[in-house]
């Protein structure tokens, strides 16, 4: 059952996004946060009656022990990030889109701290990953993994 996200949970989520990625909450002004089952958070239109609808916008996060932001969130809002933005080489970007997890060079990861990162190739936000030292765990869902020949 969908409902507008509780103010306390919304604040926690926005605080996490700001602290981890330096994305200001102004970016979400035209949208509303909604809560679903199992800690799912959706971003969708504002001022809607929820009774008649199956779903709203799409899932952008899951709240739980840790906050997890979806790859769709990363792809749509990633360019606003000023922190924890990981830039890949062309070859690694192709491997990432294919669903592979990556071992990177120190020089590629030193600007990011361990934890959730947004993954980029040049000016393109590809998705998200979990960084542990130089190891990047791919968090692209299977349905979004694909072979890229032109990048």
């Amino acid at each position, binding site marked *: 059952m969908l409902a507008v996200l509780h103010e306390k949970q919304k604040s926690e989520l926005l605080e996490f996004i700001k602290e981890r990625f330096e994305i200001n909450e102004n970016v979400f002004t035209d949208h509303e946060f909604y809560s679903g089952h199992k800690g799912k958070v959706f971003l969708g239109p504002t001022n809607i009656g929820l009774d008649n609808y199956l779903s709203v916008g799409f899932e952008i996060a899951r709240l739980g022990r840790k906050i997890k932001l979806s790859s769709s969130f990363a792809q749509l809002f990633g360019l606003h990030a000023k922190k924890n933005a990981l830039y890949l080489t062309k070859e690694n970007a192709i491997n990432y889109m294919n669903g592979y997890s990556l071992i990177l060079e120190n020089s590629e990861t030193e600007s990011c701290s361990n934890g959730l990162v947004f993954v980029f190739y040049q000016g393109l936000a590809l998705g998200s990953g979990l960084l542990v030292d130089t190891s990047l765990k791919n968090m692209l869902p299977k349905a979004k993994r694909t072979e890229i*020949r032109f990048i």
Partner: protein
Amino acid sequence: MNPVNILKERYGDLTNDSSEFSTSLQQPLKKSFRVNTSKSSVEKVKESFDKYGIELQGVKWCSEAFTTSRDALASIEHALGHIYFQELTSLLPVAAIKDVLENAQNVLDACAAPGSKTTHLSAEMKNRRCIVANDADRQRLRALRFNLEKTGSLNVVISNKDLLRFPDSSFDVIILDVPCSAEGILRKNAGAMERWSLQRIAACAALQKKLILKAFSLLENGGTMIYSTCTFAPEENESVLSELLEKTSAKTENIEFDGLKSSKGVDEWLKASYNSDVKKAVRIWPHQNDTSGFFIAKVVKC
């Protein structure tokens, strides 16, 4: 009987060039896409594809649409939802109401799945305000959800209702792209006419008449509705539109697409006569612009 011959025999006289019409039906469609302006821009996409060596041809009547080769499907732009592959004629419903969408607050895409028009609406509305994407077929909603997420369309809510039982609501814009006999998509799908019959056309038309009247009842005064099909049958096109014009306060408006060759709606077919205002509707024959077939009408509620 061969589907091409069925269509040529039935509609050849309406097309003004039955030979070109039947030839075009046997040719494959070009691949085409729309730049998703919620995530990218025409300039960025053109720059990238130029770098890849993938040729793009612009579409005169839709500045964000291009025809191209299958290679584009393997591009990062496609994977990230920066471009959305759709047939050119499916761009027409939103293209017809771009000016109206600037101020639209509540929009209904009444038969939305898999989401070509919904995602187009979302981009045109700059991912703001609200679009209700409804489809009666729950199975097809999965594809709709996928496409909404891939294109970053946040200003959309999904409902799964039989339109005929849609709750009392008021929308300022409605797109009604109805289920139909799909004669117009033979070029895209060779099996499109496997179930073709005159009985099927009649059954489709009977349902479409109910759908258009119901959709019109959901439109607020002064609101705009687009009625469209991908079929050639006047029974499903002008006849349905005429039913609306005869029974309600609906008025048709002219639609113009720069650089798009088209024909007017027909006010007579076989032994039936229709409201003369159906001539403001637009017919697209496949040979006119090298596309699928399409029918589109714009009405306002007075």
